[in-house]
């Protein structure tokens, strides 16, 4: 017990320390700019990118190139690795826009060195997409391994990884699925809820690790949370029963003038179908993004003060680090809580959609 607590403490220390070092390296490697640009620094760390930057040393960047997949009306289909676009290079007429309204996106130059650009269809495997794939592989390996162990010795008490995740699986079943959906129908939705929970949780945790394979702000990206919310939306509405739809078309127990001639309540109910997953999407996105942002802001405080005067940076560093440690520990908790909340609300929406009204 004591050793595990100690090791957890050291793990979080290493976590924070590595965060500091990577960010520090990045901050120092800002090329040709004496002035530290905090907002750029922050947005670089919470945004997506076409390559996976690992660390920089004396203007020498080490990053994992990721595949860029592009379809353009003019030049057709392209797949190439992202390092060809590194540092503003132009490849096959494509480049990463450095400013303007397409800043950060891959644009196609209509003429060489022209300002006239267009946006191609972009299905690149970005840092976040790659992280999602990594997490999917990780989850598949972890849980199929556990499943095998369950099958091999079903009568034995759980051990190892099995023991780590069993309480969560049982918690989701007994505290989320059964109360929200009901004893009779919960089983059908268990795979979805479990996948949702563990995917979000793993993504949150991996986002907290500052270096590869973590570091991507996965669940703090609205596209990712939108994908998850779309899944909840599909599961809820695909399984919605007659009374669920009846409640939307003609909500019972409200005066008729709210339904006819202008269908105010049906309209509200209809919008509600979309608001529910929308809220899920925004909640997860905002929570994780905010956590990452605050952590990076605390860190960039050091460099903001250091850019004024070096000694000021040293003076601020301990306070910043303390806050950073605190934030990291808080984010560990938030990672679990947000996964729980997303799963719980999804289960509640499913429960509402399949509830039998008498």
């Amino acid at each position: 017990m004591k050793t595990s607590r100690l090791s957890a403490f050291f793990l979080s220390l290493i976590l924070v320390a590595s965060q500091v070092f990577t960010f520090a390296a990045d901050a120092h490697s800002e090329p040709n700019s004496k002035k530290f640009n905090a907002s750029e620094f922050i947005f670089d760390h919470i945004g997506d990118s076409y390559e996976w930057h690992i660390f920089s040393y004396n203007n020498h960047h080490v990053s994992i190139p990721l595949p860029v997949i592009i379809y353009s009306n003019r030049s057709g289909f392209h797949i190439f690795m992202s390092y060809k676009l590194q540092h503003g290079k132009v490849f096959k007429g494509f480049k990463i826009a450095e400013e303007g309204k397409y800043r950060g996106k891959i644009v196609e130059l209509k003429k060489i060195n022209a300002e006239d650009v267009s946006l191609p269809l972009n299905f690149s495997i970005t840092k976040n997409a790659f992280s999602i794939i990594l997490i999917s592989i990780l989850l598949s390996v972890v849980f199929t391994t556990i499943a095998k162990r369950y099958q091999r010795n079903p009568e034995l008490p759980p051990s190892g990884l099995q023991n780590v995740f069993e309480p969560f699986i049982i918690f989701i079943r007994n505290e989320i699925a059964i109360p929200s959906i009901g004893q009779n129908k919960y089983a059908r939705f268990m795979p979805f809820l479990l996948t949702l929970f563990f995917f979000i949780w793993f993504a949150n945790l991996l986002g907290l690790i500052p270096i590869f394979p973590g570091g991507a702000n996965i669940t703090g990206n609205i596209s990712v949370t939108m994908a998850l919310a779309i899944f909840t939306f599909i599961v809820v509405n695909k399984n919605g029963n007659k009374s669920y739809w009846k409640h939307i078309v003609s909500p019972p127990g409200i005066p008729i003038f709210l339904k006819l001639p202008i269908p105010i309540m049906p309209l509200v109910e209809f919008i509600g179908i979309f608001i529910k997953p929308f809220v899920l999407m925004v909640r997860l996105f905002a929570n994780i993004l905010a956590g990452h942002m605050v952590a990076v802001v605390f860190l960039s405080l050091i460099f903001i003060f250091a850019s004024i005067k070096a000694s000021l940076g040293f003076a601020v560093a301990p306070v910043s680090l303390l806050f950073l440690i605190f934030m990291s520990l808080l984010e560990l908790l938030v990672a679990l809580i947000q996964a729980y909340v997303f799963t719980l609300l999804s289960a509640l929406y499913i429960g509402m959609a399949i509830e039998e009204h008498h």
Partner: protein
Amino acid sequence: MGLVSPDYGLLFWALLSFGILLYILKKFAWKPILQALKNREDSIARSMRMAEEARQELLKLQEENKLMVEKARLEREKELAETKALREKIIAEAKDEARIETQKLLDKARLQIQLERKQAKKELYVNVAQLTLNLAEKILRSQLQDRQKQQEYLEKLIEEIPKN
């Protein structure tokens, strides 16, 4: 890339990955895990129920044992009481019988004694009569040796004969 504007490329990959992940985990992980958990819970519940049943059975057996012991004790006591009563009865009967027998013996003895006394009396009479006769004979003989005396005695006897 905008912070709050979703990117369709990433959305596409996220949907695809999550969809595939959902399928893989559903088929190869959650189904066996949930099934195994359910089986284990069922088996634990069954074992608990069986243990409870065994406990109840044991309690019932103990209760039965107690009842049996109690019954045996009661029976033994009853038997003992019966035996005691029987013994007393036998003793009483024996005493009665003995008393009657003794009485009978006594009666018999008394009768015997009476009989023997009668006999003895009779014998005594006979003997006395014999002796008397002998004596009388001897006396007579001695007295009748003398003629005169015989005469006298005869006269006397005649005199004694009532005169009517």
